[in-house]
């Protein structure tokens, strides 16, 4: 079977696994979910029975699972009693904000991280290399939320100058769309910086290690033998080959990125899925929490799938054995 087909099959089975896992996780919640989602509305025994039926809670676990799958396929993610609206609507409002935050930081982190890492790797053994590694290890040990708190303090209280909460200025009136983008851009600075400071270390370390390994390989010796300049060697040959392991490692990164995003959104009150997850925990709004988890996990699976395909394109030898 061609690689793409096989990989797609893996993706689909992983998605099914996640959906099932999600279902099981949220159906072993102690207590009567109807009481919980109906909040403080007084319900008669009839109304409770009706709600049990509506939510498919009166069948066996398996039939509930089937109902759950059926609903998912129709795009029905449940109903939130805290927000009094379908979960899918809430998700639609927030997911774009998180996407914006993650895309911006990932771009910065990957580009800057790889460049720094390759630079350090090319100076392997020298001072600049060791100090870079130490700096990276320190950065990677920082709790993301704490970095956020420090930046909030620095730029919100101490020096000031940057917005520390939200995605836009409240009640802002814009003359044109550029002003709006600029406002959002200003609000994007600190959250992105927070994510970047910690996550960049990951790429620095990985790409540095990768470059060092590549530099010591045979074909690199050949290149040196040919008399190519150092620059060409590093950036021409080494770089491209060093990228492959970086791609593999990104699989781990994407998972961690999601965790970082939640922390950043909480600290900066950024209205995305991370903050939504946090709030749904506070209010025990399980339908929303369930949806957040599912979407996040599926997004990670899809991102990994894309990464694997990209890797396969760059190096078709891959895919024989993991």
């Amino acid at each position, binding site marked *: 079977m061609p690689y793409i087909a096989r990989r797609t099959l893996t993706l689909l089975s992983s998605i099914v696994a996640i959906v099932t896992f999600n279902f099981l996780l949220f159906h072993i919640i102690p207590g009567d979910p109807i009481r919980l989602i109906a909040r403080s509305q007084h319900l008669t025994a009839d109304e409770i029975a009706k709600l049990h039926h509506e939510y498919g809670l009166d069948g066996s676990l398996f039939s509930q699972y089937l109902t759950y799958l059926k609903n998912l396929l129709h795009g029905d993610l449940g109903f939130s009693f805290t927000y009094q609206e379908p979960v899918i609507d809430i998700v639609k409002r927030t997911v774009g904000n998180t996407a914006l935050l993650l895309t911006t930081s990932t771009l910065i982190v990957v580009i800057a991280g790889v460049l720094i890492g390759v630079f350090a790797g090319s100076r392997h053994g020298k001072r600049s290399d060791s100090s870079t590694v130490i700096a990276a290890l320190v950065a990677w040990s920082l709790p993301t939320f704490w970095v956020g708190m420090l930046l909030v303090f620095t730029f919100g209280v101490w020096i000031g100058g940057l917005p520390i909460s939200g*995605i836009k200025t*409240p009640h802002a009136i814009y003359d044109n769309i550029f002003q709006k983008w600029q406002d959002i851009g200003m609000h994007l600075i600190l959250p992105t910086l927070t994510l970047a400071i910690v996550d960049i270390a990951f790429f620095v370390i990985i790409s540095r290690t990768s470059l060092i390994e590549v530099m010591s390989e045979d074909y690199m010796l050949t290149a040196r033998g040919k008399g190519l300049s150092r620059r060409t060697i590093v950036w021409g040959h080494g770089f491209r080959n060093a990228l492959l392991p970086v791609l593999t490692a990104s699989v781990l990164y994407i998972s961690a990125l999601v965790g970082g995003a939640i922390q950043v959104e909480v600290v900066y009150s950024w209205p995305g899925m991370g903050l939504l997850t946090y709030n749904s925990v506070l*209010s*025990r709004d399980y339908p929303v929490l369930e949806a957040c988890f599912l979407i996040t996990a599926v997004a990670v699976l899809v991102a990994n799938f894309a990464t694997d395909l990209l890797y396969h394109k760059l190096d078709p030898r891959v895919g024989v054995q993991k």
Partner: protein
Amino acid sequence: MVSIETSENTSADANSVQGFGSFSRRNFIRAAALTGSIVVVPGFLAACGSPKTAPTNAMLRVGWKSDIDTFNPFTTVTTEAIEVQSLIYDKLMDYGTDLKIEPSLATSSTAAGNTITYVLRESVTWHDGTPFTADDVVYTFDLIGKNQLGINAQWLTDYQSVTAPDAKTVVVAFKAPQAFDPGLVIPIVPKHIWEAKTVEQIKKDTNASPIGTGPFKFEARTQGQLVSVTRNDTWWGKAPSAIGVSWSLYTNDDLQAQALKNGDIDIIPQVAPTVFDGLKADKDLTSVALDSFSFHHIGVNVSKVPGSKGNPLLLQREIRQALGYALDRDQIVQIAYAGYAKAAASILPPSFGDSYWEPSADQAINNNPDKANALLDAAGFTKRDSKGIRQTKDGKALSFRIIAISSTSVDVRTAQLFQASAAKVGIKLTLAALDSDTLASTVYNTDAPDWDLFVWGWDSGVNDPSYLLGVPLTSQIGGNNDVFYSNPEYDALYTKQATEIDPAKRVELVKQMQQMFYEDCAYLIPVYLEKLQSYRTANWSNLTETPGGIVFNFTRDNYLKAQAGN
């Protein structure tokens, strides 16, 4: 797919998190939630200046920490919602900034025997242009009175009938004379919009686009973020200077304070004690600490229904009183409220003047661990376990659960301090912090309340003791009564004072009630609140510092009188 923001008015203020009623009347809460609107367009950093905010001499921007529950005046319970509704709807009579009663939709209100007669204002229109008539008043009173609907039903318990003898008069008849004029609290709703709905439908109606006769019209609402109203230029009264009012939700005290400091909002109606000093020091702000009609309390589950999951030990008065003696109110004032509160005793704060009752030194049930220990020993709880926690004769520990709203930091701190105090007399308290929605639904579960103690609060709905005194009534179980207290003697006294016209006699009854309730220790009230509020001096003037608050008070007048600019 993802939605693109369509309206410039619904600003995506990212301060989202639910949470209600830091200290509010809250009951069958519904909503809250958050989510910002989305921006699909990537942000770019253009070089030029920052966007203009609305000219500050127009919109009065309030920053608060709890969202409204609904616009439906028949199901609403939160202070926040009532605040917004007070600008959209008018009442027959209303309070001025001096808290004196003034005419509103009615030009006069006359009580005679068992009736109250209102003379209505003329040439008033609803926000949708329909003329206001006496039928609207009749409809509103009848709906609430006949069906005992919503929190305002408590003022119509003696309701008999309502009639409109002519186009500008309404007569409400009661079974007995009323000490309190319900025209002061009941918002008048448009009959032509509500009459088509059945009572069941009304109970579920969110009233998403409320129509009233008030000085402001509904404009927009983003759940968990923003509520806004715009000026009603056809209002019957003097037009407000503000072009509109908006309320933005903040989750974090710090962020809220920062927003006020850098001018994102104009006024904070409830400043957290820990940030208040910082705001006081800021020269651009006017910060006030006002006497209030509010308190925070620790409620004890004294429900007697068979399904109750509260700890049955709490039904014993000695244990409740021991908890009362263990509580150190001064410490709570100092540490939980940073000094910005007053040590409390009974259910009526001192702002209620003559009605206020205070226990004498020997009557006081406060900060006396020795007495607490003595009480518990005498009641037979002398056995202790390895950690020093008392046990019943059959080995059950005196261990209770206490819940508080996580976003109300003063309550969480109060609970923490109370834990330490209770431990000193051998009682263990386990703290769980919940969001306000969950706390409300946990507490107000009439059939099977699954909690032992909570920390919460009350604001008096009206400038009259009946509101707060009415909370622990047996008839309010299923209503405001959050501890399921039931005492027939107390109920009897309430009925008496509610129909007692002689003020001196009424004060006597009211004081008796307070003492009775105090000694029963179903409420342990640590503090009377000081309303800490702060606003930008340059943006708004002509705000009266009324006891109870500039805003978030019985009177809405400051919204109307506020002058833009200095």
